[in-house]
């Protein structure tokens, strides 16, 4: 397990993903799981920076034999990414709304996203399973 706490700033996605990379290397996680969580985490942290108004963010990484978990807590405005509308990827490019791609990618890259509002804190769990090898 590893924890990382930071004030909310433009550097949050870069720093959060650097901590993730160090954790993934330390635990010898397979490349597809590393990359998927790296991308999903970057999207979520960028959303926090851009939209939440949070002052502080905490990230916890946990590794199990066949899965990895990132838990991100922030004290920003309540926002449940799991409740965001699905993006319809079949609509032609000229007609499609451009927003919502970050959450769409988080959903596709992770196996499970779980949101809770606990007091004045947003808590999102991002889970990625992999084949232990």
């Amino acid at each position, binding site marked *: 397990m590893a924890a990382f706490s930071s004030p909310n700033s*433009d550097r949050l*996605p*870069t720093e959060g993903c650097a901590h993730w990379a160090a954790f993934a290397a330390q635990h010898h996680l397979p490349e597809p799981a590393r*990359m998927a969580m*790296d*991308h999903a985490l*970057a*999207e979520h942290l*960028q959303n926090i*920076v*851009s939209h939440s108004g949070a002052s502080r963010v905490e990230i916890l990484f946990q590794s199990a034999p066949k899965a990895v978990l990132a838990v991100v807590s922030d004290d920003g405005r309540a926002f449940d990414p799991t409740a965001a509308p699905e*993006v319809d*990827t*079949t609509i*032609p*490019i*000229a007609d499609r709304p*451009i*927003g919502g*791609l*970050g959450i*769409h*990618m988080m959903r*596709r*890259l992770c196996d499970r996203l779980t949101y809770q509002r606990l007091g004045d804190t947003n808590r999102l769990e991002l889970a990625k399973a992999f084949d232990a090898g």
Partner: protein
Amino acid sequence: MSITRQSKGDECEFILPARVDGPTANQLEIEVLEVMRGGARTILINLAAANFLCSAGIRVILQYHRQMKSQGKVLLVSGTSPEIDQVLELTGFRDQIVEKR
């Protein structure tokens, strides 16, 4: 996060770094707007060195792909790695914005 720009006539190619994150996407938008205002008719976004493309980067590519197309001009992505192909595939845009080789 540096972006390299190569221009020839009214064609321009942007060569993007390995990680196209939020700040790099913002920089790309500034540079694309600059060459569009300068009269570019063809813009290529070269992702051969990239292995990470965030949604902000995709948004920039899509937004200006549409604008250029509506003016009878071209903005396409070139040189995608397997990682970038996978991300573009997830969005459903891959076949529409990647240059056909």
